[in-house]
């Protein structure tokens, strides 16, 4: 997308795009002590696609729920066609012409396309009989108008996700929607399906419908939207046209780094030269080539040497977690190769990967990490049971020794090995999980946001442990939701953008803004970018 195209599009829309349809003025919403929305003002205009971006927890979902009548604002006004309105239910909002299409489609897979389009507002005969013939005709008409390649009589469940999404949109149109909210509509779609969706959105825009487009994929926002609103911490940070707000500025606004850049990032003692030598000499501990999984991991390649800490840098939704899980074998890769110390892994499962020297720490400690009902001891040894047992009988002595050593080494604060892990603080739970990863003596450690949700002191301890491990010869790949942390912890970053790796960057002396600039698609001037294993960048 070039600036010229954006300008042309904006100019074309300018004539009819001025009339505000749905507006919020100073809307606030508090849940308990959490201020989910703070003084939010947003204007949706007829014939305009309005993009809404922000990290998780920025308040996008709450705003959508206020617009669609799930939540009532604590203060502030909602106006529709310049008249104050208040939606006390989603149904009321729908009747007023405000419809939302969600990422997870809430339609009935067992019924036909036409049934779903007219669900709960079927054309009736004599006021109570459903007029099937007319319903099919009207459905066919809508399908034709937007050139959807679906049969109105087909069962919804037999269609692809993209087509189902279209049906959900068609349903909104049939309800007489004048404001259509698309909440992450593309996250489950393939490239071709996305194109079809965008054609439909263009058609809707031409009809004068006001659209709100919520997506983590910034390239789509730039391709589609006439204006963009950035939210952070429950407030609107900026609203601007795409050409006023280039990618770098948008990301900075999302992450709250506007105006940063005065303070230089503290230099770390590690000498880059020594590291480069190490990189050149040793064979990589982990080698990933052209890894693919669904549409979330599209082309990931990276190399990590022993003793090296590499950061996988990407925004939320860039596929960090999916990449790790695919490398680890928790999900089967569609294509690509993973090599550990030169040996290719085939038919991976977590158990096999662990056996071959890979360890993975999930970002979701509660759901995928700890066994909250069990003791610290059982949590630490979970991955190691085959190696501390003989003929299937667990050796208590070896178990106790390993647990004792782990607790001492990582400084886990617990009442004892038998204490329930749920009584530990988040940081200590995390250390217990790192202890589990280390128990199998891995050569490569994949850490997905290891300091998420733990306090500052515990964060530093986790950093210290990770650096010690690398010093002892492990290869570490780490992600973080905080760019400063990633820079402080790693020696080199690999950029991940919408499921594809795009070159790397040495972190010595780098500033978070530099990383954001790269993620935004602009190389910094001083040429700090290094080529990463010949991967094609995928400029958006």
């Amino acid at each position, binding site marked *: 997308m070039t600036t010229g195209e954006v300008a042309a599009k904006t100019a074309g829309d300018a004539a009819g795009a001025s009339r505000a349809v749905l507006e919020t003025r100073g809307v606030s919403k508090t849940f308990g002590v959490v201020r989910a929305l703070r003084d939010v003002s947003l204007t949706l205009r007829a014939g305009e696609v309005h993009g809404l971006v922000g990290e998780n927890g920025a308040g996008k979902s709450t705003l959508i729920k206020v617009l669609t009548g799930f939540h009532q604002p604590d203060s502030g006004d909602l106006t529709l066609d310049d008249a104050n309105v208040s939606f006390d239910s989603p149904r009321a909002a729908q009747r007023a012409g405000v419809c939302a299409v969600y990422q997870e489609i809430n339609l009935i897979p067992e019924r036909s396309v036409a049934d779903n389009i007219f669900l709960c507002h079927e054309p009736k005969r004599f006021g109570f009989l459903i007029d099937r013939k007319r319903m099919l005709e009207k459905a066919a008409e809508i399908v034709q108008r937007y050139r959807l390649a679906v049969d109105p009589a087909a069962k919804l469940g037999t269609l692809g996700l993209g087509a189902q999404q279209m049906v959900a949109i068609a349903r909104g149109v049939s309800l007489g929607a004048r404001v259509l909210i698309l909440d992450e509509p593309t996250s489950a779609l393939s490239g071709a399906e996305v194109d079809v969706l965008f054609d439909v959105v263009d058609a809707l825009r031409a009809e004068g419908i006001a659209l709100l487009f919520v997506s983590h994929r910034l390239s789509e926002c730039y391709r589609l939207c006439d204006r963009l609103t950035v939210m952070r911490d429950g407030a609107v940070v900026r609203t601007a046209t795409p050409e006023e707000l280039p990618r770098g500025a948008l990301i900075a606004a999302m992450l709250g780094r506007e105006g940063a850049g005065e303070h230089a990032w503290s230099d770390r003692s590690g000498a880059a030269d020594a590291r480069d030598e190490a990189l050149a000499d040793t064979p990589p501990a982990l080698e990933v080539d052209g890894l693919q999984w669904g549409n979330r991991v599209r082309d990931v390649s990276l190399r990590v040497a022993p003793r090296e800490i590499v950061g996988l840098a990407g925004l939320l939704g860039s596929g960090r977690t999916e990449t790790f899980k695919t490398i680890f074998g928790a999900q089967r890769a569609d294509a690509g190769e993973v090599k550990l110390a030169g040996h290719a892994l085939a038919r991976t499962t977590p158990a096999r990967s662990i056996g071959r020297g890979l360890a993975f720490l999930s970002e979701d400690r509660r759901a995928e990490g700890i066994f909250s009902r069990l003791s610290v001891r059982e949590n630490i040894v979970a991955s190691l049971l085959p190696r501390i047992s003989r003929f299937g009988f667990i050796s208590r002595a070896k178990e106790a020794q390993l647990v004792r050593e782990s607790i001492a080494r990582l400084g886990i604060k617990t009442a004892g090995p038998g204490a329930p892990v*749920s009584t530990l603080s988040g940081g200590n739970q995390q250390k217990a999980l790192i202890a589990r990863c280390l128990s199998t003596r891995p050569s490569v450690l994949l850490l997905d946001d290891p300091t998420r949700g733990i306090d500052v002191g515990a964060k530093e301890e986790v950093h210290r442990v990770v650096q010690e491990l690398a010093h002892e010869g492990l290869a570490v790949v780490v992600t973080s939701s905080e760019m400063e942390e990633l820079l402080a912890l790693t020696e080199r970053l690999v950029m991940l953008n919408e499921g594809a790796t795009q070159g790397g960057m040495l972190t010595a002396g780098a500033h978070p803004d530099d990383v954001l600039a790269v993620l935004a698609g602009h190389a910094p001037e001083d040429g700090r970018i290094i080529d990463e294993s010949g991967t094609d960048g995928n400029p958006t």
Partner: protein
Amino acid sequence: MATQLESNEDRLSPSNSTAPRAPGETRRGRAAWLAVLREHSVYFALAALVVFNLVVTPGFSNPFAARSLLFEAAPIVLIALGQNLAIATRGIDLSVGSVMALASASIAVFLPYGVGTALVGAVAVGALAGLCNGALVALLAIDPLISGLALLVAARGLAQALLGGSRVNLPDAPAFDVLGALAFGPVPVVMLIALALAVVVAFVVRRTTFGRYTILVGASRSAAFLAGIPVRRTLFLVYAASGTLAGLAGLFASARLGAADPNYVGVNFELDAIAASVIGGTPLSGGRISIVGAVFGVLLLQVLDASFIMNNISFTYAQILKAVFIVVALYLQRSGG
């Protein structure tokens, strides 16, 4: 023996009751007492019920009453063991009662080839049913509730089909006499076998990798998968073990009855096994197991049944009272966290 096992299991499955403690020494002391009471409620309840019956119920102190009660309890102890494993993985095995009936019918089918073949055949058929259930749950990822329900219907139907829906009396054979009638004092041989198996299962749970896997899978399936635990193999083996134990239970029940009876053997036994497991301290939410508790849970339910029968309370009312008892017991346990 029992107390020693129990204390070990406590270490294996720590309770959460230690987490929130009221300030102040006296309240703390009382809270700890309540926690102990709750933790071991099944033993206290059993003791109270036995004392109550000894005082009130005529003929309860008669050793014959105890022997008959233990004969009834032995098969339920066996299926409660399998049930306990399934529940610990956060699953359930609804098929055990019907698998008992299928094993019972198989005795009659295999009898022409000798009594020994019949004994082995019954258990083997139970194991086969368990393997089917395990394959459905582990390999095809069908919800254990559904696969168990399917097998509950199918196994009972197959059992009835095998014998044309009728009852076949077992011949006089020493093996059936031993299983059906032999007892040392009030303790039947079958009960001794069941208790021996309970000790084996308790040991497996506590000291083997398979036992630990069972608990880990139940505590968090996705965490277990990512920790490299063979989730599917564990589930498969758990249901296979449950089926095998149900086969043995069917054999015991038939020997006691003196007949292979697909219509009578094991009807609603799965419910007793589930109730006993949960009363004994293996919560349906998985990740925790108490074999000793389950054995005492079975005894508790049997004594409860006996006290209704011996006090001439009609079966209909006895069922209602039993249900109330179970609900109250589970509520008390639940409030303990």
